[in-house]
C-alpha cells in the first residue's frame, strides 16, 4: 500500500533521514521504534507531505506522493495524527472533527463518519461542544485520532499516541489502536513505548540516527538482542 524508497530528508542543512526504505501492506499494522531524535517524526511528516524529502520516492497505492500537493495527500487515503495531537484548542470537538472531514471526498460522508467516530469514542460525543483544549490528554488523543478517521482513510499514521499520557490511559489508547486495526484499517505507528507497541503491530522497523537498523515481525523484534538491550531494558 505504502512504499518508501531510499528517502533522504531533513530541515535546511540538517539531514534527519538517510536512505530509508519502508513498506506497509494493506491491512497491516506496522510499528516504527527508535530513540528520541532518530527521525521517527520526520518519517511521518515526509509521508504526509508536511516536509518534502530531498531524494527518494514515496508511493501510496502506486500514486506518487511527492508530486501530489500537500493538501491533496489526505485524499490519497493517508491520515496523519501528528505528534502532540495538534488539535485546534479553541475549536469545539465537533469543529475539530469537522476539519478532519474538510476535503471534498469526505464532506458528503460527514454525518456517516461522525457516527462511526462517536461509536468508537463515546466520550467525544459527550464532549462534542467543549473546547478541545480544555479536555484531558487522553480525550484529546481520542479527538485527534477521531479527527483523522473523519477523512475515511485507508492508512492511519499515528505519531507517538501514548506520549504524555498516564499509564492507564496509554493502555486505553493501545486498546483503541487494536480496535481500529480490527476494523480493517492499515496502521503505521511510531512509538517510544516499545513493549506496548510490539504487542499491537504485526511488524516493526527499528530506526536509529535516521537509518533503518533492523526490521521484522513483532516476535522477531521482541526476541532481537539489539532491541532487547536498547529498548526493553532487559
Amino acid at each position, binding site marked *: 500500500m505504502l512504499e518508501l524508497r531510499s528517502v533522504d530528508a531533513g530541515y535546511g542543512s540538517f539531514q534527519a533521514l538517510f536512505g530509508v526504505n519502508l513498506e506497509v501492506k494493506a491491512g497491516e499494522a506496522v510499528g516504527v521504534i527508535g530513540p528520541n531524535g532518530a527521525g521517527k517524526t520526520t518519517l511521518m511528516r515526509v509521508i*504526509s*507531505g*508536511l516536509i518534502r524529502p530531498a531524494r527518494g520516492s514515496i508511493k501510496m497505492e502506486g500514486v506518487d506522493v511527492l508530486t501530489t*500537493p*500537500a*493538501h*491533496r*495527500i*489526505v*485524499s490519497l487515503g493517508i*491520515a*496523519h495524527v*501528528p505528534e502532540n495531537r*495538534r488539535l*485546534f*484548542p*479553541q*475549536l469545539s470537538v465537533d*469543529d475539530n472533527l*469537522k*476539519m*478532519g*472531514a*474538510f*476535503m471534498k471526498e*469526505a*464532506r458528503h460522508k460527514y454525518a456517516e463518519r461522525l457516527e462511526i467516530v462517536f461509536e468508537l469514542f463515546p466520550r467525544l460525543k459527550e464532549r462534542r461542544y467543549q473546547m478541545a483544549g480544555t479536555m484531558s490528554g487522553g480525550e484529546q488523543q481520542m479527538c485527534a485520532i477521531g*479527527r483523522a478517521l473523519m*477523512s475515511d482513510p485507508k492508512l492511519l499514521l499515528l505519531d507517538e499516541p501514548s506520549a504524555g499520557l498516564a499509564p492507564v490511559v496509554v493502555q486505553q489508547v493501545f486498546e483503541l489502536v487494536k480496535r481500529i486495526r480490527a476494523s480493517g484499517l492499515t496502521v503505521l505507528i511510531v512509538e517510544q513505548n516499545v513493549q506496548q507497541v510490539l504487542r499491537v503491530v504485526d511488524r516493526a522497523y527499528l530506526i536509529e540516527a535516521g537509518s533503518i537498523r533492523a526490521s521484522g515481525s513483532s516476535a522477531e523484534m521482541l526476541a532481537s538482542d539489539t532491541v532487547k538491550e536498547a529498548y526493553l531494558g532487559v
Partner: protein
Amino acid sequence: MQAFLDIFDIYLLEAVINGILLGGVLALLALGLNLIFGVIDVTWICYAELVMIGMYAMYFMVQYYGVSYFIAAPFTILLVALLGAALHYLVIAPLLTAPPINQLLATGGVLFVLQSFATVAFGIDFRNLGIRLPVLAFGDMNFSYARLLSFIAALVGMVAVYLFMTRTFTGTAIRAISQDRQIMALMGVDTKRIYIITSALGGALAGLAACLLVLQYDVHPFVGLSFGPITFLICVLGGLGNFIGGFIASFVFAEIISLGGLFSDLEWGYVLAFAFFIVMMFIRPAGLLARRR
C-alpha cells in the same frame, strides 16, 4: 430651565441612539480587518480605501448609470470582494515570508495607489448619491432612515458572516487556521485558497460598508481617512483578531464620537475617541493585550 433640560435629554438620547446606529457600520469594518488579521496575520492599512472605491462604484452605478440602489449594492460588494482577493494575490502573497512590517507597508503603498487612482479617475470633487432618505420621527427625536437601514444591514451582514464561519467547512477552516497553520495541509486544506477566500470575504465586508456609508457621506478620494484611523483604534482596543472585542469596542467608540459630536464637530468626536483610547491604554492595558500576537 425645566424645558431646557427636557430638550437636552432628548438630544442626548438621540445622540446615544445615533451612536449605536453608527456602531453597526464600524463593527462591520472592524470585523473585516480582524478577520484578515486573524487568518493571514497581516493588517491592511488600505482597508478604508477599499471602502472608498466601493463608494465610488455605488455612486457611478446609481447616479451615472441609473441602476437601482438595491441592484447596485450586490455588484459593489462583489467588486470590492474581488479587489480584496486581488490585493492578497498581487501584494500580500509574494510577501508572505517577508517581515510582517513589510506586508503592512506594502498595503500602505496600495493606500497611495488607490487614493491617487481615485483622484485621477474621479477628480477631487465631493460626490453624493443624491438619494434623500426620509427622516423618521419618534416623538421629538429624529433619526435618519439611512442610519437605521445601515445599522440593520450591518447586523444582517455580521450574522451572515457568523453563520458562514460556524456552519460551513470553509468557515471552520478559517477559524482553525490561526490556531495551527502548519497542520492545515493534514486536514486537506489548501491554505493559499483559504487566504484568498478570507481576503475576498474581508473585501466583501468593506463593500457592504461602502454601500451603507455612501447613503450618509459624500465620497471623495480621501474619504477613507475619516474612518480608517478610527477602525484601527477599535481593532487595537478590542484586540487584533478578536471578533467580540472589536464588536464591543466599535460601539464604545461610536458612542464617544456621537456624544462628542453633540457638543461640537464630528472631528472633535474623533479627537475625543483618540484621547479615550490613550486613557484606556493607561488604565486597562490588559484589555488591550488580550490575545495579542
